């Protein structure tokens, strides 16, 4: 197994060999749905990452857009221009490029919110499960109350309150962080409850007692020894939460209380395009909409599969 004489390359080989030998990989290969959705999600994430290389223009650089190109339909319609595959908006921005840059922001907000939620939720879950007693009771009561409201409503309320506390000039700049904060706070409960119940069943096991007997501190036991054993379900929740976080962000941006038009996410693009729906320029709003559906659907399907694959009852 792992020893000091192994080079880094060997370790990577070892790890990947273990991965390709695992049940998860086997189940992945058996499920066409999981493979397709993983493929779609991977393509969309890569496209967003390499947006500056793939996009024909930077739609937010005024020097690169031309009002003469405004409101062009997609290339397969009459008046379509081969330079703009999915058409242009009212300011002459290429829709395909705005989608690439927009999904970049959507994905960033999604991942950041999941990471923050996960840290808060797992932290409180570990604390709640290991400490028990009054700490546990307080944290779980708060979780119960929060769980009785839909996450999207909580995110909207937090976002609305913070926007009113901040001065108006700061909205544009801080909108990204405000929305990440709002979505993170709305999503920690699932992580906390799951981790708490796993910790409760782990902490009576012998390895934990052994740790206590040799005098390890509570923090060491929880972080070094219990945490790695309760992470499985956390990944499942994280994947499904990513889809939800992207949808919540898009919804808030669509409602006009999310990201501003200067740093548009997919939701902002849909909001902007929605104003042109009635004048027949459907492509400005529908294509970003499809990108959003594709992203949310593929991540959701991946999460569904992961949940089944990690569920020992279904093996």
């Amino acid at each position, binding site marked *: 197994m792992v020893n000091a004489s192994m080079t880094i390359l060997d370790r990577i080989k070892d790890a990947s060999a273990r991965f390709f030998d695992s049940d998860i990989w086997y189940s992945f290969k058996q499920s066409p749905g999981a493979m397709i959705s993983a493929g779609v999600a991977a393509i969309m994430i890569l496209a967003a990452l390499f947006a500056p290389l793939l996009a024909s223009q930077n739609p937010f650089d005024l020097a690169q857009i031309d009002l003469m190109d405004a409101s062009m339909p997609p290339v397969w319609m009459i008046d379509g221009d081969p330079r703009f595959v999915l058409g242009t908006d009212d300011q002459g921005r290429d829709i395909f490029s705005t989608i690439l840059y927009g999904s970049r922001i959507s994905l960033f907000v999604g991942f950041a919110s999941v990471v923050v939620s996960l840290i808060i939720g797992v932290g409180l879950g570990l604390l709640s499960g290991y400490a028990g007693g009054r700490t546990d009771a307080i944290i779980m009561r708060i979780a119960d109350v929060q769980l009785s*409201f*839909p996450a999207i409503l909580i995110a*909207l309320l937090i976002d609305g309150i913070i926007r*009113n506390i901040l001065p108006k000039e700061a909205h544009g700049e801080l909108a990204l962080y405000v929305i990440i904060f709002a979505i993170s706070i709305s999503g920690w409960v699932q992580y906390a409850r799951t981790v708490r119940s796993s910790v409760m069943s782990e902490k009576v096991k012998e390895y934990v007692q052994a740790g206590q007997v040799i005098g390890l501190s509570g923090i060491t036991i929880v972080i070094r020894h219990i945490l790695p054993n309760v992470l499985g379900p956390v990944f499942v929740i994280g994947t499904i939460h990513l889809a939800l976080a992207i949808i919540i962000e898009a919804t808030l941006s669509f*409602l006009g*209380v999310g990201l501003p038009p200067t740093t548009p996410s997919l939701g902002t693009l849909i909001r902007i395009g929605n104003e042109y729906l009635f004048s027949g320029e*459907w492509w400005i709003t529908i294509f970003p909409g499809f990108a959003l559906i594709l992203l949310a659907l593929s991540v*959701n399907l991946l999460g569904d599969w992961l949940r089944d694959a990690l569920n020992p009852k279904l093996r």
Partner: protein
Amino acid sequence: MFNFIVKRIIQSVFVMLAVAFIAFGMFRYVGDPVNNMVGQDTSLADREQLRKDLGLDDPFFVQFARFAGKAAKGEFGLSYRHRLPVRDLIIERLPATLELSFVSAVLALVLGVPMGVYTAIRRKSLLTKGFMTMSLIGVSLPTFLIGILLILFFGVVLRWLPTFGRGEVVQLGWWSTGFLTISGLKALILPSITLALFQMTLIMRLVRAEMLEVLRMDFIKFGRARGLGNASIFYRHAMKNTLIPVITVTGLQLGSIIAFAIITESVFQWPGMGLLFIQAISEADLPIMAAYLVLIALIFVVINLVVDVLYVYVDPRLRGDSGGGHG
């Protein structure tokens, strides 16, 4: 049972107090209430007088108690923007939201339950696969996109249905209803479908899961052994036992329908409470925000309380004299 109800009521009161506290903090400490009420040319002395009259110099808890007392009577002061009592604004908008939510809830139930039962009974049929795929897409489709797609298709391309507003409404006392005019009913169609779709997929999946669970149980096997027909097994015995969780979840979903109405109302410019709230956020109209916060929390708390109590009441296994099942 009694202990359980008392415990839940105390918990609900705490939740309401916490929400009222947040609403109060926002109302009192975000911006200056006096500046928001008076014009530019009001003298400093007048401002001081107003400050005193409003009781803004009183100790914190006195102010909070006054706020909570007024809130309990439904008084939240004047809207900064509309210059009208917040209570009147909300009462004016309430019927629009409630009618939309009611139609959506009925739609979700009437379609969701039979679809759930069907997909559980005919697990292999093509229609079942269709329903299941649709529900998966439904879960990933954000509400506002469903609305936009419906508007594009039925409003812009086919021009069959109106895409914004309530149409003509009829006043019945303080309640304005869209149920009594053709244009009011037509205006309801697209928004209510938009709002119902997500809840429908949820109900369908729940009914299916519960039904599959019940169909595996011994009393169903026994029923079959006794020679009962499919219809009797499915509808008289199996469905009856799936209804308890379905009632609970549907009850809880009622609250989220009212919350999701914010999005639907925004897409269709439906003049309800949600639209009022979204506008209040972007206009920093704090009294309206505070009032909406308290109102929506109240709706959720009451629904949760009623559902919890009903749940214990309906399911005899949770009763017992030891007091309180889960809690």
